[in-house]
């Protein structure tokens, strides 16, 4: 676990009724947008809106979405829907609309990526030691990890509307899509709260969705490789006018077992942490769930990542373990370049991202 390095420029505490923690206003140097962030879902949620006057309503909308998503899909909450299903040991379940959408998106992501991301990696993660909230994992705990558990396969899971059929012994983990889904839902919820006026950017742990009218030339976003070196040359400023961008990396959420460094991106085929040439992949897509899934799939795909991204038509930025940066699918290679995305989503089957509770 990497400790927080410093604090943000806190301008004011923004109360958020019902939220686990309060929002903090952030000064970014522009007073044309209002920016705030708080801890959420074990990561940082950040919200930027314009006009700035719409911030208060936007915070409430995001709080509602995050709270609902946590109740639906957190493996680490005893009272979540996914935990209830796992305790039941398989069978048929009537899901809430929100959780049904989350599972549907995860299954569609698996279908789209040919199984490079797979929601049935729950047992694989547990075997590797990711069996509790990441903040509660002892990064240096002794003893080896359990034997690798290849994923049973997303095809073993059936979802018919809100009815989920889950074989006994199959545990779900929606980590490859859930944060992106949350950003999509939150951005949509903010626009609904604002009567579709203005624009919004929502970031959940760096998985970013934008909606509404963007600032001129798009939302300015920093794309970074890793957390260790703020002055790294492996950063890039881009502009995003629509859609989403997400990043997956093997350089964080690491822990050790018997001297072996493990991380949270698991190759479903082997049940082991992905061991390809890419340490960080950023992908732009129509929705953040698409971008989230594609970025994780690219890390898992290894040598095939560039080909897969090109065929999928996803602009991407890949950073190799040796520091080389590759651009695929129209991702701008210049600083300040604009990222354009196709409007087609691959993971929202026949629908637009919902604001489901």
């Amino acid at each position, binding site marked *: 676990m990497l400790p927080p*390095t*410093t604090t*943000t*420029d806190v301008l004011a505490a923004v109360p958020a009724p019902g939220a686990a923690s309060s929002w903090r206003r952030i000064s*970014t140097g*522009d007073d044309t947008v209002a920016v705030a962030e708080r*801890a959420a879902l*074990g*990561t940082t949620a*950040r919200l*930027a809106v*314009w006009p700035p006057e719409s911030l208060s309503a936007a915070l409430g909308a995001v709080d509602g979405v995050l709270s609902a998503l946590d109740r639906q899909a*957190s493996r680490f909450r005893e009272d979540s829907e996914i935990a209830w299903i796992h305790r039941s040991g398989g069978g048929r379940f009537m899901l809430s609309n929100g959780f049904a959408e989350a599972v549907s998106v995860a299954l569609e992501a698996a279908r*789209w990526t040919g199984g490079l991301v797979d929601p049935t990696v729950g047992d694989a993660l547990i075997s590797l030691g990711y069996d509790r*909230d*990441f*903040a509660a994992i002892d990064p240096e705990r002794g003893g080896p990890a359990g034997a690798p558990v290849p994923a049973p396969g997303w095809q073993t899971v059936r979802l018919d509307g809100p009815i989920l059929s889950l074989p006994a012994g199959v545990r779900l983990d929606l980590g490859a899509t859930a944060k992106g889904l949350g950003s999509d839902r939150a951005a949509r919820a903010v626009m609904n709260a604002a009567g579709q006026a203005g624009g919004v950017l929502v970031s959940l*742990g*760096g998985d*970013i969705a934008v*909606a509404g*009218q*963007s600032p*001129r030339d798009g*939302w*300015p*976003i*920093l*794309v*970074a490789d*890793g*957390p260790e070196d*703020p002055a790294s040359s492996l950063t890039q400023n881009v502009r995003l006018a*629509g*859609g989403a961008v997400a990043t*997956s990396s093997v*350089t*964080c*959420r690491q822990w050790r077992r018997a001297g072996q460094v493990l991380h949270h991106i698991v190759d479903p085929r082997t049940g082991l942490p992905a061991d390809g040439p890419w340490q*960080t992949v950023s992908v732009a897509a*129509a*929705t953040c769930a698409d971008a989230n899934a594609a970025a994780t799939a690219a890390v898992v795909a290894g040598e095939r990542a560039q080909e897969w*991204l090109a*065929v*999928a*038509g996803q*602009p991407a930025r890949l950073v190799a373990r040796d520091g080389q940066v590759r651009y*695929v*699918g*129209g991702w701008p290679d210049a600083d300040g370049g604009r990222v*354009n*995305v*196709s*409007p*087609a*989503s*691959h993971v929202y089957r026949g*629908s*637009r*991202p919902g604001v489901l509770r």
Partner: protein
Amino acid sequence: MDAERDPRRGQVRLPAFAEPAAAGWQAPEADGPALAGRSGKARRVGIRQVRRMSNWTAAALIVGTGATTVALAHHAISVGAPAAAASSSSSGVVTTVTAQGASGPQVSHSVATTSASGVTTTTTSQVVNGKTVVSQVRHAPAYHDN
């Protein structure tokens, strides 16, 4: 069946764009010549008013339609061309509708960072000795995936 295929079937011509008022516009003159003269004059005035209103209505419709078309075109979604080296899957669902920043505010500094599982870089600014100093600070909080 042929009548059903007549593309003009069901069309109604606006009086203002037609020949002088057709018989169908005239009412029977049942109250004698004098009354008929007065009523005929009133009827002609009425018809002119109706024509005038129809002209204005048609003009308003044309102008409104044009303005709407221009507005929609102005706010059309900016969709980047598909990647040069990529062929997009046809199975995708068109979903996100986000407008281009034609009239949004000017924003110069990055408002968010996408990086290794969400490390947040905060751009801050403060005035030091009369100069605005912009700095970036990286956060590395503990994360978990849900």
